[in-house]
């Protein structure tokens, strides 16, 4: 799309003058003729060429006459770099004949089933045949036949008859995704794209091949036969499935989202998406969406002892918004001072987060707010560390990865870093408890026991290791995240302390995972923070003036809120799209907190585990149903598009906040989302530019913070339990969250969870890989299979958090720095 580095014609001594169709064009040395021509406004037709992949010169559609002084020769413009005194003719008779010839040949075996092809209407083969083709075919023979679409994965169907063998999908799978699960088989006229026998195309990035297919050979199961391109409505937006913030086009038909396409923006996704993001629209139209406010029937609300006992349909009755909000405002006014808390807010827009932040501080008069569920870094670090962008990480001399498996957590960031390492624009060094998707391409890969990344790094940097010298010179970006929720956030924060003390010029890219968690924290949805990355204790003057009196004391974070609730100190607990019962690491504390809070108000799209236990449920609008802005993990603010109407009376979170404020006797001062965007820009120095058209495309990078974060002191590594294994709870892409479980296309992709340990540790356990065992912590036990995985560091046991079918949280005590577990095997057939 907009490519600022090449959009402007480069000038200066380092350019090459070429003549394209009689016009002199200044091109960069090494630039391909096809790219230089396109920049000069001359479009050369192509199928196999893709600017984000290496050229192969396969389709021969881009043949043009190029004269380098030895007379005009037909050359593939996607393979030939510009040279001095080069003359290119894209409209000559020879060029035209070559284009007609290639198109005639491409069509001789193409089934021409455009009428029933999903690609029809947006098909490069169709379009270029109309523009450059010969008009009619002289082919009278039988065409090549293959079995019509065969599913090559749960998401992608392959029609080999339509395929023109451009090598785009296979190149993507190999070069970009690094998962070469599809390739050419056979030869010559029999060549076809296929998977390997018995191995489906189970790439997390398979949907991209559908998007870049220049014909209808690859189709996505969720979109097949859903719409025709000319019937689609569309708007540009930003994906909020994770925090990478990929730019997308959202498309709908008959008020239903049917497809997302990646938009190529340089700073973030280069046009790629992960499959979870691409197909997540299914959850928006799930029949399980709640479409009207719900209130617990008085008899069930009183029976706190029946926790989780009754069906939601029995527990709740539908009410109108006035009744629901009045009930909330009555609970608020009855609450003791400091006994109101707001959990969540990372799922909404920046405007939602700002509205709730303002509501909490100025109307509810509480600072007990937290957008994170103890699964991120301390909020002060997220907003206050010296930040780096994705591009910075891709171009740093060294990029240090101290985080979970980015392929599982932030897939497109994984793609970007993989591409950078492949192009040698950075070198990756990782310190992780198990192998990640980037291990094979990393320059160096260090394993650590769970919770010990900081001490491993300290030993490396303080010792004789060459790493300290390598980091001392040159730029360093640290991708810092939580590789496990089974260790305290202090462990990750300590990494920042260790690095900052020794590599002061290092910058940080915080690998926050949740969709808009960065935006929520920037808007002050964390205890002690205010919008614009400011501290509650030192409010910026404009904000203080606009907001008036602020809570005096810093409130509780998520753990503090749940603990206070468990102690009976919370009268009203708001859950903003948060599901502590499913998503908070410590299940026991979550249960106690939710059941002990006097009134639980859930603002959500689905009756999640926690929302099902609420007293009042307020249905929220989802992605694609509301406008506003979102912030990615870099701090890049971009605009969201609204394309479809929310179901029933569901409405955006900010609107709920504004209405609630009025009922509680306050006034947030805005009635549209745009007014909030403007208020944020007016009151937050960091977001001053984040307004208007600048939010489209690349968006606006909000930089800076009003304070220096306090780094925790360096501690010593947690003591080792000589008998046990250290629990590492990372994430999987297809987890048990509502995005996956409510999307029909994705729900089947979840895998059975298993304990993964190093083969040597498995030998110590003494069972065969795949055996079901019991894993015990001080808190609880789970029964599930154990498998050997040489990628796991010795002493660790890896178990994905929020995996399908099990509650890993029963093992986790949020107060413990690390969780050591032991594995128990039982003799089959013998009862307890």
């Amino acid at each position, binding site marked *: 799309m907009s490519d600022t580095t090449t959009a402007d014609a480069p000038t200066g001594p380092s350019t090459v003058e070429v003549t394209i169709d009689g016009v002199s064009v200044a091109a960069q040395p090494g630039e391909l003729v096809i790219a230089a021509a396109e920049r000069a406004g001359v479009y050369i037709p192509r199928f196999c060429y893709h600017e984000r992949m290496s050229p192969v010169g396969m389709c021969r559609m881009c043949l043009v006459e190029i004269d380098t002084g030895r007379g005009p020769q037909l050359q593939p413009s996607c393979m030939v770099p510009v040279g001095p005194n080069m003359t290119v003719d894209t409209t000559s008779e020879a060029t035209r004949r070559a284009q007609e010839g*290639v198109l005639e*040949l491409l069509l001789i075996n193409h089934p021409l089933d455009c009428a029933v092809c999903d690609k029809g209407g947006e098909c490069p083969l169709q379009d270029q045949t109309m*523009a450059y083709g010969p008009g009619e075919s002289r082919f009278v023979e039988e065409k090549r036949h293959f079995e019509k679409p065969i599913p090559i994965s749960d998401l992608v169907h392959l029609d080999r008859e339509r395929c023109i063998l451009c090598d785009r999908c296979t190149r993507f799978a190999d070069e970009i995704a690094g998962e070469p699960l599809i390739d050419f088989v056979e030869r010559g006229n029999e060549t076809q794209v296929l998977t390997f026998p018995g191995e489906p195309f189970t790439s997390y990035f398979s949907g991209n091949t559908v998007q870049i297919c220049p014909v209808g050979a690859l189709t996505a199961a969720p979109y097949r036969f859903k719409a025709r391109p000319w019937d689609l409505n569309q708007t540009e937006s930003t994906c909020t499935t994770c925090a990478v913030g990929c730019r997308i086009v959202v498309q709908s038909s008959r008020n239903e989202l049917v497809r997302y396409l990646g938009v190529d923006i340089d700073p973030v996704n280069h046009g790629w998406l992960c499959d979870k993001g691409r197909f997540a629209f299914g959850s928006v139209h799930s029949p399980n969406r709640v479409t009207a406010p719900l209130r617990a029937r008085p008899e069930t609300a009183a029976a706190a002892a029946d926790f989780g006992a009754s069906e939601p349909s029995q527990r709740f009755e539908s009410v109108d918004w006035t009744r629901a909000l009045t009930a909330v405002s009555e609970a608020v006014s009855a609450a003791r001072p400091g006994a109101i808390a707001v959990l969540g807010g990372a799922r909404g827009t920046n405007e939602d987060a700002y509205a709730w932040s303002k509501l909490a501080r100025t109307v509810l008069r509480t600072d007990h707010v937290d957008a994170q569920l103890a699964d991120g870094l301390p909020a002060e670090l997220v907003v206050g560390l010296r930040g780096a962008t994705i591009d910075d990480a891709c171009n740093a001399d060294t990029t240090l990865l101290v985080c979970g498996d980015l392929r599982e957590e932030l897939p497109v960031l994984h793609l970007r870093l993989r591409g950078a390492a492949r192009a040698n624009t950075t070198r990756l060094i990782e310190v992780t408890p198990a192998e990640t998707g980037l291990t094979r391409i990393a320059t160096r890969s260090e394993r650590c026991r769970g919770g010990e990344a900081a001490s491993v790094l300290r030993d490396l940097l303080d010792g004789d290791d060459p790493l300290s010298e390598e980091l001392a010179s040159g730029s360093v970006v640290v991708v810092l995240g939580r590789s496990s929720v089974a260790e305290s956030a202090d462990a990750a924060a300590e990494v920042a302390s260790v690095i900052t003390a020794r590599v002061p010029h290092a910058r940080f890219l915080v690998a926050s995972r949740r969709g808009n968690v960065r935006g929520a924290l920037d808007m002050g949805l964390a205890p002690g923070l205010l919008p614009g990355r400011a501290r509650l204790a030192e409010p910026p003057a404009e904000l203080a003036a606009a907001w008036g009196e602020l809570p005096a004391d810093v409130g509780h974070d998520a753990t503090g809120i749940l603990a206070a609730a468990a102690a009976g100190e919370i009268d009203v607990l708001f859950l903003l799209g948060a599901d502590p019962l499913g998503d908070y690491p410590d299940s026991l504390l979550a249960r106690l907190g939710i059941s002990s809070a006097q009134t639980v108000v859930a603002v959500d799209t689905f009756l999640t585990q926690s929302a099902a236990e609420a007293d009042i449920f307020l249905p929220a609008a989802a992605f694609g149903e509301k406008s506003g802005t979102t912030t990615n993990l870099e701090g890049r603010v971009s605009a969201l598009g609204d394309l479809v109407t929310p179901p029933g009376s569901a409405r955006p979170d900010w609107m709920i906040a504004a209405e609630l404020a009025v009922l509680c006797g306050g006034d947030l001062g805005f009635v549209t989302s745009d007014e909030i965007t403007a208020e944020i820009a007016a009151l937050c120095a960091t977001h001053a530019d984040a307004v208007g058209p600048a939010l489209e495309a690349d968006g606006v990078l909000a930089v800076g913070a009003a304070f220096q974060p306090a780094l925790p002191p360096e501690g010593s590594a947690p003591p080792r339990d000589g008998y046990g294994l250290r629990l590492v709870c990372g994430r999987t892409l297809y987890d048990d969250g509502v995005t996956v479980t409510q999307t029909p296309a994705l729900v089947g992709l979840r895998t059975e969870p298993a304990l993964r340990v190093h083969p040597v540790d498995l030998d110590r356990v003494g069972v065969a890989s795949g055996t079901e065992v019991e894993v015990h912590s001080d808190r609880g036990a789970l029964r599930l299979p154990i498998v050997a995985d040489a990628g796991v560091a010795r002493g660790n046991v890896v178990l994905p958090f929020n995996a399908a079918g099990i509650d890993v949280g029963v093992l986790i005590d949020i107060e413990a720095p690390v969780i050591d577990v032991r594995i128990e095997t039982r003799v089959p057939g013998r009862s307890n």
Partner: protein
Amino acid sequence: MASYTVAHAPGFVANDAPRIVTQRFDHPDSYTLERYLATGGYEGIRAALGRSPQDVHSEVRDATLLGRGGAGFPAGVKWGFCPPGVWPRYLVVNGDESEPGTYKDRLLMELDPHQLIEGCLIACYAVGLSQCFLYIRGEMVLAQERVAQALNDAYAAGWVGRNICGTEFSVDIVLHSGAGAYVVGEETALIESLEGNRGMPRLKPPFFPAAVGLYGQPTIVNNVETLANLPWILRHGASAFTAIGTPTSPGTRMVAVSGHVNRAGVYEITNGTTTFRDLIYGDDYCGGLRPGRELKAFVPGGGSAPWFTPAQLDLPFEASQIGPQGSMLGSGAVMVMDDTTDIPAAALTLTKFYAHESCGKCVPCREGATWLERILRRVCNGTGTPRDLDLLFEVGATISPGEFPHAGVPERGLEPKPFPYQMTTICFVGPSAYAPVHSAMTLFPEEFTARVAPNAHLDAQVAPGGSVNGGPISEVAVRV
């Protein structure tokens, strides 16, 4: 040795002609190290090691040793294209001989493997290559076995490996067996195959092997016969080599003759002076055509070369004379067709081969070659129409635009169209599929028109000439 017998083609030697690469072919044990050492073997590398690499390189450059694989590019010049100071650099021996009609390299590998190994050593020494990959076509079982045995013997005797002849010079030679794809004879496809990828050609530029070759490093790709010449050149000197043949094409070359001759086989002929008439009719060579038959046409340089007719018989094996007459010397294979030959069927046989061997990378070759084959098959079996003949030329022009090279036909006043051709594909496989069709139809048009004449009425049923909708559709701006 294998317990089974592998039939191999006969190698014949003309009585008094100079012999460079076939000198040991007379000995039944020509492939053994003992025989090789007894007949001056490994003296070339010994001589080379006594001189500086630059010196050896100059000697080969002075010998004007033309590449024997097909393109005929001087080996000494090719070696000079390696960018200075870039290491490692590799030698890749192209033993994937698979051009139709060509089997000379196979004999060289089967009958004198040590000569090839010594040639590799000399090339490696001259250019500073520390690793050599010997890529032998998958189907050549005997050649693989003999080269493998020779390599084992040479390693054991210290001729290959570390510190050859007690010097600092060390080379490893790796034997690699192909999987049976014609296109891998093309040097960039061979490199892809060697790297473990599908054998598909790379585009030059940027992938000129001498600059960016195997594993992205500078790589010299030489033909088997080219390298087999090196020991002799080092032993006898460049001047002795250039004394044979002509200044522009010195030395000898091996030619594999097949078809309707009395004595088909491989011959070492003198470059530049031996003519096709000598080869086909000479008593020392093929001994003429079958009794009572006359020459109709011959392919002078492998299946992909445009054909010649008796009018070109007196041309010598000299690239500078063959090119202007519309063909090429190519891989040193002569296929002889006498007057019993069904020309369209002969063209179909060759085109079918290239269609089958297309790697599938470039659209014009993948789709066009098969289409050519199908149209030609229709013509051959009597169901083609006159329009199909035009279509053959038009489809061919999509693969190879512009006028295709062909021989002259004096009696028809047809002037030759000199080599080379243009192409819309990366490598020559696409145009090669068209070459036999074009030659056959240009030189023997009457054989084709006779086949399609009975069906002329069928063409009238189709709208005459041009598009049903009145020509190409107007241009529309599109984006991918």
